């Protein structure tokens, strides 16, 4: 039991960077933009967060820098695909190339350095009064670091935003059918820009969690493909931030289960376990398409540029 609880608590930690990137990509795709540059934006956030953290020792400034860096990556993507109507897939892939170069370049002098003590202390596990003492659930969910709590809050807030507010409703309309959204007076391009940038900022935070808390040191390619898992998770969660919360922690668990199983003497190659998130995503995608469900389908406008006067 103890082992299971500690495993699940660790799964939440491993899932947190995935969670930020996933909800970031959810909000981006909800606006109709398929940004495959998640990995690049995470890396940009990871390196800028780490660098500013090293320079200032201030956690808040580090996170702010990570968000700005992620949003900057998203801005390039947004400008290319929204204003210049470039192909989204190709632009996103290019963003990943750029982001990888950017993070390796900035991070070169930082390689091997450990996150400053002030920040590590700031993000040490903190037991939430009352909630943290609930048996089983408490130690799993509520004895985590502040960054994890931020992840919970961000997902729930995003869920409320999407499903309960009028702006969220407008956003869903933009992603589904930009032409109709435009006709009722929604500023389609503004919505696309704002949410793509916000999505980039969240991806940046996901990267910063890796470099500042999870590792916590700078190493090249610190995201190790987690950006692509996030792209998969968006589908697994059927574009729903609440389901993303569950999915990210599930995939986080898959990320660490190999080591745990080896500890228990069960020998399954880590590489096969690493395949699981991708396999699960494919299965989800195939099942969703077999059912032809109208509710769990991707936003209909996903991947297409919108131009009002197109004839």
């Amino acid at each position, binding site marked *: 039991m103890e082992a299971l609880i500690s495993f699940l608590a660790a799964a939440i930690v491993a899932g947190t960077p995935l969670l930020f990137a996933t909800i970031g990509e959810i909000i981006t795709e909800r606006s109709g933009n398929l940004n495959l540059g998640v990995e690049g934006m995470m890396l940009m956030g990871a390196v800028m967060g780490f660098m500013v953290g090293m320079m200032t020792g201030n956690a808040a400034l580090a996170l702010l820098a990570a968000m700005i860096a992620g949003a900057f990556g998203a801005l390039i993507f947004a400008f*290319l695909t929204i204003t210049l109507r470039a192909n989204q897939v190709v632009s996103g892939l290019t963003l990943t*190339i*750029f982001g*990888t170069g*950017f993070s390796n370049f900035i991070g070169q002098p930082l390689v091997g350095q450990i996150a400053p003590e002030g920040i590590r202390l700031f993000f040490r596990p903190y037991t939430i009064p009352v909630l943290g003492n609930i048996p089983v659930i408490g130690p799993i969910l509520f004895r985590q670091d502040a960054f994890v709590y931020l992840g919970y809050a961000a997902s729930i807030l995003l869920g409320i935003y999407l499903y309960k507010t009028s702006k969220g409703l407008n956003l869903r309309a933009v992603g589904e059918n930009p032409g109709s959204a435009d006709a009722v007076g929604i500023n389609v391009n503004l919505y696309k820009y704002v949410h793509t940038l916000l999505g980039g900022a969240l991806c940046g935070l996901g990267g910063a969690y890796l470099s500042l808390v999870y590792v916590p040191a700078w190493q090249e390619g610190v995201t190790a493909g987690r950006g692509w898992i996030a792209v*998969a998770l968006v589908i697994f969660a059927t574009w729903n931030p609440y389901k993303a919360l569950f999915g990210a922690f599930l995939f986080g668990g898959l990320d660490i289960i190999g080591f745990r199983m080896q500890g228990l003497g069960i020998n399954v190659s880590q590489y*096969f376990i690493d395949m699981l998130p*991708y396999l699960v995503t494919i299965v989800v995608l195939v099942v969703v398409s077999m059912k032809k469900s109208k509710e769990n389908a991707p936003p209909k406008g996903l991947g297409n540029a919108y131009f009002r006067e197109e004839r």
Partner: protein
Amino acid sequence: MIMPMTIRAIKKSEPSRLKAATIRIGAIILALITSSIFILLLDLNPANVYMKMVQGAFGTAYRARETIIKAIPLVITSLGIAIAFRMQFWNIGGEGQIAMGAFAASFVALNMSDMSKPILLLLMILAAMLVGGLWALIPAFFKAQWGTNETIVTLMMNYIGLKWIMYLQYGPWRDPNSLGFPKIANFTENAILPKLMGVHIGWIFALLLVAAVYIFLNHTKKGYEIAVIGESINTARYAGINIKRTILIAILLSGGLCGLVGMIQASGVNSTLSVEVTGGVGYTAIITAWLASLSAPVILVVSILFAALLEGGSYIQTVFGIPESAALILQGIILFFVLGSEFFVQYKFILVKNQNSVKKEVV
């Protein structure tokens, strides 16, 4: 709402080729200027850097050969991707198809090394194309059967393929004679592609395939059917085209070409199988295929230029001691500009003065 002047974009009725070329070249020049700022930040002379890049790519026969070796996988993978993209099947699984092709070729190379060279190489090629094709066929089947989004499935399958190679490299295929180093045994001599004019014969394959794919897409019934499906599934249905079969055939070809790249890289370049066999070509080729507007001859040109960018990039690393990542950033910047420039090829701008409605063409 008062706006004294607004700029509006209007779709051009038919972009002229000359203008399109001018705009694209203009974009590259702008990209180089932007990159110059970045280079200046590194305390280097941009003109000098660019010159060294050209030298690095084509300066000596050796470097030109290196550039061509880099271009070969790009050309063939781009051709494979172009077939799929013509059908609007977004195959971004080149990476995984290359890896699985390399896996199949290596399986043959490692287990049947006593065969004569031509037969062994032929078997490796066939195995690589078959397995690469089958790997691509999985998402194609889902797409044909249930309309499952192929963009994400092909992407996911890249990682499954690469993890599989990693498993082999660190597990069952690990060479016991490599002193604990996680690597797979080198191929025997008769599993290595011969060289012609100093470059492994993959370049001949690449040239032949450019011609073959060009003819296939433009002058065969299947090529025509692929284009019709790409433009309108309903029209294809209406004309009695067997859509499922055509999707499967096209993607089998697309994946088969990517698989062939895996064989060429494993045999001609690395002489073994490793996770580095793909080298990101599966992604880069998407960009080159797209920039070449999915046209086979243009793919050849764009791929060579892109390989020159890579090769020149790695040369300036050694000359100026700048990190490898700087080359990636330059690559990214140039691509951003070229991608953005398509807009100016497709649209023209009209300056509208709202007061007296005077129109003025800007571009």
